[in-house]
């Protein structure tokens, strides 16, 4: 974190110099923060804060409501609704906003500490007696405000730390001392005692395995974590995805990180959209004995047998619809007594149906042709030539004419 404190003011117009005086004194107390003093206003002040993460301006202020010597803390959002007089930073606010709009490197956090004064008109190199007598207490109050800012920052850090702590089981592994409930599982025959409330995948990691295979998306989309298991006392061989299945006591499991099921090569542009194309490319589907083992094995609850039968008939649409949720885990193919590679057949059928079974979308083809012909170049050029303000206006205008959902 790089911080800067900038004292603002003009030492030859009486109390106006208080910001400068305070900044000078702060140098001794905050040696690891950059402290500077400036008598400019508006855009010139940006130079003092570029490149910092956090900037605190200390400035005089004349609300004429607060008692002289009063010190208040403001943030950027405070300036939006209130008009304020006699503060150097007023036009600074718009300078900062513009700089942000242009993507310049202004600090993310900007604070203003305002000191209520009496006189910022009279040319004299000393403070009014009132401010003079209060200046040490003003200094202490400014310091309090700076501490307040620092504390706020600390509490943000604490907050993030709390979140990180409560998530640690998913970001760096489960801590055994926090687990109450346990189960025994058998991975490739070896027994491991693991937390009861985790997935098979998390359990294996807890058991000390650094997964290389059998782990991809960790969310049920990729099919990398196909698993076969039996539960003690149950004859049935079950299938599941390790990232989406909770461990059970007495689970005997093994993973199938890869299914040796050959995919045919074809040129989709050359294949004919005919009833027997799927059979021609995957003749093995004719061997289906309608045992339905594949459907029972499918972790996505797909009616695999039904789509194989539709494929035999050449009903592309039906195959496409039935097989749509397939994550290509290969479990159906692993269990098929007829050695059929169902999911490859499904993939071919979906592509054939997608390419030939539905008419092209005319709008899309037209829009693509228009782009290729450069039809939008002029409109783009107009936008590229706009000032940032004009771009913003156009954005707001487009949003006003938003389509309804």
């Amino acid at each position, binding site marked *: 974190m790089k911080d800067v404190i900038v004292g603002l003011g003009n030492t030859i117009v009486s109390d106006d110099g208080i910001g400068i005086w305070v900044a000078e004194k702060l140098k001794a107390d905050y040696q690891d923060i950059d402290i500077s003093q400036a008598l400019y206003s508006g855009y010139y002040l940006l130079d003092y804060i570029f490149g910092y993460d956090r900037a605190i301006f200390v400035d005089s202020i004349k609300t004429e409501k607060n008692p002289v010597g009063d010190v208040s803390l403001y943030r950027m959002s405070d300036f939006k609704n209130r008009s304020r007089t006699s503060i150097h930073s007023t036009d600074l606010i718009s300078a900062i906003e513009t700089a942000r709009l242009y993507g310049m490197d202004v600090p993310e956090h900007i604070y203003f500490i305002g000191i209520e004064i009496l006189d910022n008109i009279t040319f004299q190199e000393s403070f009014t007696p009132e401010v003079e007598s209060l200046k040490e207490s003003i200094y202490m109050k400014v310091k309090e405000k700076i501490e307040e800012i620092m504390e706020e920052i600390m509490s943000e850090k604490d907050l993030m730390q709390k979140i990180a702590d409560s*998530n640690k089981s998913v*970001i760096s592994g489960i801590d055994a001392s926090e687990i109450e409930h346990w189960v025994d599982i058998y991975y490739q025959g070896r027994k491991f005692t693991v937390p009861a409330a985790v997935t098979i995948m998390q359990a294996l990691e807890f058991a000390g395995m650094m997964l290389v295979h059998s782990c991809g998306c960790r*969310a049920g989309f990729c099919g990398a974590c196909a698993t076969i298991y039996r539960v003690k006392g149950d004859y049935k061989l079950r299938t599941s995805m390790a990232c989406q299945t909770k461990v059970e006591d007495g689970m005997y499991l093994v993973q199938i990180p890869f299914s040796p099921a050959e995919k045919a090569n074809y040129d989709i542009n050359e294949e004919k959209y005919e009833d027997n194309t799927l059979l021609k490319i995957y003749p093995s589907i004719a061997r289906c004995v309608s045992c339905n083992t594949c459907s029972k094995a499918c972790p996505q609850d797909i009616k695999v047998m039904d789509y194989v039968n539709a494929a035999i008939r050449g009903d592309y649409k039906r195959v496409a619809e039935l097989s749509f949720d397939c994550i290509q885990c290969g479990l159906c193919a692993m269990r098929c007594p007829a050695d059929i590679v169902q999911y490859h057949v499904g993939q071919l059928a979906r592509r054939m149906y997608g390419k030939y079974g539905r008419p092209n979308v005319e709008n899309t083809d037209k829009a693509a042709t228009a782009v290729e012909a450069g039809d939008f170049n002029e409109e783009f050029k107009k936008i590229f030539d706009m000032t940032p303000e004009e771009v913003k206006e156009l954005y707001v205008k487009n949003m006003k004419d938003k389509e309804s959902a």
Partner: protein
Amino acid sequence: MATLKLINGYPESMRESIKKVEETRAGRIGKLPEPMSLDARKDILDLCHPDFAEGGKREVKVGVSKGILATNEVADLLEAYPLVDKEDVDLSKVDYEVDLLVIGGGMAGTGACILANDNGIPANKMLLVSKLRHGDSNSIMAQGGTQAADRPEDSPTRHFMDALGGGHFTNKKDVLKALCEDGPIAMKWMGELGVLLDREPDNTFTELLGGGTSRRRMHAAKDYTGLEELRAMKDEFLSREIPSLEFYPVVELLSDGKKVTGALLWGLETHEYKVVRAKATVLATGGFGRLHIRGFPTSNHYGATGDGLALAYRIGAKLLDTDTVQYHPTGAAYPQQLIGQLITEKIRSKGAQPVNVNGETFVYPLEPRDVEASSFIKECYINNLGVPTPAGMMGIWLDTPLINIIHGEGATDKIFPGMVRMFSRFGIDLANDPILIFPTLHYQNGGVETDPECHTNIEGLYVAGEVTGGVHGKNRLMGNSTLDCIVFGRRAGIAAAKYIKSQSEYGKLSLDHLDGYIAELKDAGVQSGRVSPMLLPDYRGRAALARMIDVVW
């Protein structure tokens, strides 16, 4: 052995809170908190958003973009020593000599190969390497959809303006123009590949309105958009017999001192290295969710460790916008098995309200992503009104039973079949009970700087997809990143093919560029022992790691 007692998926402790949610439900229908004012939004972001809360970022001390602000976790990757000692590798023995090397098997990488092949690079002169299996990626997980301006009511310029505003006007304009213009071309290509995007009865695409867009242009394939797009692309890739090598991540790029000339791979199972010499290299390694920035759970795949950032940076490629991260407000927070996984935004659009432990609403459900996420954090950790889970997390209820109450019995099953399946696997019926959520780390906004043709500032190195920075600026709109991968994967393949044709010879292979980088690290006082790329996150936990020893035999 004792198991935790669950009643329809939830333990007794959480059931008590669910009771309160049920009690307040009827009174909440149609009554929502007001949306926040712009100032209130800013204040809550300042207070609670992980991007703004203090202590999350620092300036990077070394490299070409020295001084750039990055999250600490990304800065750690950049300010780190190489995994391999250059003395240990023999670069004179080349294992693969190819025209084109593509790193990463998501949509960007797969698309780059297909288009390079279309543009004259023979399949056997290419190699796609990936860390996990080809396709195990963030691409395959995209649910919501892909934006493309292809309707007469819409135009690429309008798409451009929406994305520019969404990115707080910080996007790289020439790259964004390419993204939006290629939208219709990308969708047309999807059709040619046979991708089944949802259609209307009149055979036009079903196009939905996404957050922050002024036209309906979100194309989807049910809630499996990325899966459907990528599996068709991969099928095409495999049919063309383009060689690929899985479980061989790149651990360093190679250079002749001027341009990128290949890469050094490391076998995750074999632990041996392999040397690839290539005329052009496309880096498409995706994002960094698994860095768990600020300790957040993530929606990303296992291999999303930001490797590409470290690889590219060490060879001199410039980075952009490494200080912003996208957190999605609704990641699953319970059960333990689903933590971090994405719950689509649509569930709130359809009426599910976020409520606290007492069943009270506290925020308008459809604030922008960053604001919504911040108010969940505030309710949990500042107001202490979150719902504690047995695993020690805090979460907010998403009152999903409201969906059926509003849209009629059976609506939930019909609109959210994937989500219903996900929770039912753990005994939770989201039509009857609320689900618990907490913000999740979702997307890497910044990355390697690129131009519309996917060039980096280093000759021979192309980049595409989530690893890049600039196109989305400091914030990405929903549906623009799958488009990004398709569009710039294609463009990278085309540009690389063109470049390859201009190169008659292969470049020299060396790791000498590491010398200067290592010297800089030492000067900056970076402790030895911090290494990158990370390759895989480690979830084995303290108990297992404490007993780990290295055995050499």
